[in-house]
Structure formats: C-alpha cells, structure tokens
C-alpha cells in the first residue's frame, strides 16, 4: 500500500475518518513505521495549530440569555412594533429637528456680531414682523443651549402624542436602568447632560451628551426586541424622512443611525455628518 496522505492523517486525528477508510488507515499504520512517525508529527501540528488559535480567542464571557434574543412577544411584533417604530422615528426626528436648528443657530451666534441679540428676539423680516420661525430656534449663548434643548422636545411632539404622556420625565441612573433592564449605554468620557423617559412611555430612554461644546448628541435607547433586529445595525432609516415635519426634512444633514449593544437598541442623532455619527455610535458602550 502507498503511504497515506496527510489529509487522511488529519481526518483521522480529527475523528472524522470512519468505516473502511479508517480500517485501511489503521492497517497501514500497523505495518508502516514511517507513517506512524508522520502521524505523530501531524498530531503535534494539530495540537500546535489549536494552541495558536486559542491565543486568538475572544475573552470568555457568559452568553446573553437566549430569552433576551427570543422574546416571547416575537410572533406578535409586526403591527405594534412597526407602529411604535414610526412613532419613535417621528418623535426622534421632531426632537432632532429642534436640536439641529439650535446647533445651527448656536454656530451662527458664535460668529462675532455688532451686538448680541436680545434674549427674546426672533429673527425678523425686513418689514419688522416676526418671522414664522419659532422663538426656540434662537439660542443666544451656549449656556442657554441646554435649557433650550430641554424645552424643545415637547414643542416637537405631536399633540396626539402629547396627550398620552404628561411630560418627558427626567430619570436618574437607577430609573433608567429599570426601564432598560441594564445600565444605559453612553459615549465614554462625555458628561450626561440629561436622561429622560419618552413621554409616550414606550420604554425609550433619551440620553443627551455634549460631544463638544455646542454639539449635543442624543442617544435613544430601548430594550432590543428580536423582531426589530432583522436589519443589521447600523441602519439608516430613509423612510423616516417621510414621517418628519417639513422643517426637519429640509435639513440635509439629518442622519439617523441605530445599533445594538448587548440587549439595547440605540439610535444616535446629532448635528454631525452620518459618518461621524456612525463612528460615535460605535463608541457607545
């Protein structure tokens, strides 16, 4: 008999040789010292390769419980989840539209001008009548941005939604954990300005963090549901634009990205390019 090839030896060592193939290999090994030597060499090679791969293994962690991936609600997700997503998107975009304008106006107000605008000034047209722009869009100074942002959400929430909830209640860390089932994910190294529960009580926690002075990012977090994880993150939601008020739709920089971190679904919004937002989203932990 010819000497056995190394593929056969590896298959044997891997326990993947059976029946006649295995019998004839063993018969050959019994009478061929050269192949027995090779078998031992290959055995050492298999062990060595396995050892090397072991050094390139991920850290051992307890797996997420399957129940968290397979939610019992899964079969009923279609209508309610789709509806909830629409509301969340419209809601988020509404909020975001305000923040976008604020950031934009803030940038404008940062340019030295002859005189600071009066605190309550609205942009005025040449004829002196107030422009249709809401007063909240004027952010006179960085200091007031936070306060303005804080008041912005309710203005953007459609009346029908507003009726369902009273306000957007501020949350502390423990309350946020209770809503999300775990500590909220945040951008590391950035102070959390505010955490709120969405007024509709849909399990969304909104976290505001200042990325750089004047750039406030929002993270919309909720427990991930199996059903909405069909699209791999991050996903842009172009259809979201259809749900947005016209004022928001004309903002070209609107981007909307989502990602799953462990058991949380996280969306990010902010006045930055989508590539930057996507990168920031990756930093959330």
């Amino acid at each position, binding site marked *: 008999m010819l000497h056995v090839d190394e593929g*056969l030896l590896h298959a044997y060592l891997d326990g993947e040789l059976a029946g006649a193939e295995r019998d004839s290999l063993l018969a050959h090994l019994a009478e061929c010292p050269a192949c027995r030597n090779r078998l031992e060499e290959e055995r050492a090679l*298999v062990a060595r390769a*396995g050892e090397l791969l072991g050094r*390139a293994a991920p850290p051992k962690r307890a797996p997420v419980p*399957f129940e968290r991936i397979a939610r019992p609600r899964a079969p009923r997700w279609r209508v309610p989840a789709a509806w909830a997503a629409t509301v969340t998107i419209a809601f988020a975009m509404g909020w975001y539209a305000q923040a976008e304008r604020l950031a934009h106006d803030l940038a404008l107000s940062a340019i030295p001008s002859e005189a600071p605008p009066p605190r309550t000034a609205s942009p005025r047209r040449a004829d002196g009548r107030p422009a249709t722009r809401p007063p909240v869009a004027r952010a006179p100074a960085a200091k007031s941005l936070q306060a303005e942002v804080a008041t912005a959400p309710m203005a953007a929430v459609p009346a029908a939604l507003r009726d369902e909830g009273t306000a957007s209640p501020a949350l502390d860390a423990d309350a946020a954990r209770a809503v999300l089932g775990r500590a909220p994910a945040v951008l590391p190294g950035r102070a959390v300005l505010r955490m709120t529960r969405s007024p509709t009580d849909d399990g969304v926690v909104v976290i505001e963090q200042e990325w750089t002075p004047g750039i406030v990012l929002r993270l919309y977090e909720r427990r991930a549901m199996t059903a909405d994880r069909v699209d791999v*993150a991050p996903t842009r939601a172009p259809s979201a634009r259809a749900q947005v008020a016209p004022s928001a739709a004309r903002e070209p920089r609107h981007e909307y990205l989502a990602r799953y971190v462990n058991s949380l679904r996280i969306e990010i919004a902010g006045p930055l390019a989508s590539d930057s937002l*996507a990168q920031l989203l990756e930093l959330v932990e």
Partner: protein
Amino acid sequence: MSDDLAEVYRTTYQALVRFLYRKVWDPDRAEDIAQEAFARALVHRPDNTRGWLFVVAANMARDDARRAARERRHLTLLKSEPAPTATPSDAGAHEDDERARVQAALEQLTPRDREVLLLWDADLSYDEIAAQTGLARAAIGTTLARARRRLVEAHESGGKRDHAARG
C-alpha cells in the same frame, strides 16, 4: 422550533462568537453579530440552523469589516479621540501581542484555507464544513493539514511575509 434554536444557541453561540472574533477582531462586534444572526434565525427558521448561522454571520462579518474600513477613512472627521478598539491595558499587552501575531499568521493563509480552519475550530464537522465551503468532504482533511502547517509556519516566521510554503 424555538426550543430547537435555544438548544443550538446553547451549543453553538460561543463557537460562533469565536469564529466571528477571528474575522472582526473585536469581541463586542463578534457578540453583536452572533446575536444578530440568532435573531435572524428566529425569523427565518432555516432548516439547517447551524450551517445557516455561520453563513449569515460570515456575511455580516464581511459587511462589518467593509463598513469599519470605510469608517476608518472618515475618522479624521472627528476630533482626536482614541481609536474605538484600542483599549489595551498594560496587563493585557502580552496577550494582545500574542493575539496580534496569530492574527498576522492567519492573514497569510489563503481565504479558503483560513475559512476551513476557522470553521473547524468553531466545532463544525467535516460534513458541515464541506457543505459550507462547497469543498468535497475528502478535501477537508488536506485543506486543514495545509492550513495548520501554514499557520504554524507563518507564526514561527514572526508574521513576516513568506510565500515559500505556498504552492
């Protein structure tokens, strides 16, 4: 069905994470993708769950790697921030170094050899690997022998480029 998938999850999840980790080299992303693959399996209910999971997960890892590469090019848009994956501690520096050497060695394998080796190390059988890769079952042993030899050689040569052993 859900019970079956729960069982597959129990037996396969960590192997899938291990498989993915060697593609994306980020434990969090590997877990994200693995969970995503299982979540999709819940929706799609494939017949061959394990095989399906590895195919879908490998595709997602490939997309993820492309996206990561694209985003790295845009990283300059951001303020100077630490790179997202670079968080080695001093204590872990040695392990990181070891891991990097194995990673470099793995990258010298041909894509097919590497894939077969990673699938085997993720506990797939020869039959499963054959189905996954389109290789004949009889070719798996030979492919693994070559991949293992190449991995060890590339590792010993310190991750330097060395095409001598490639025929």
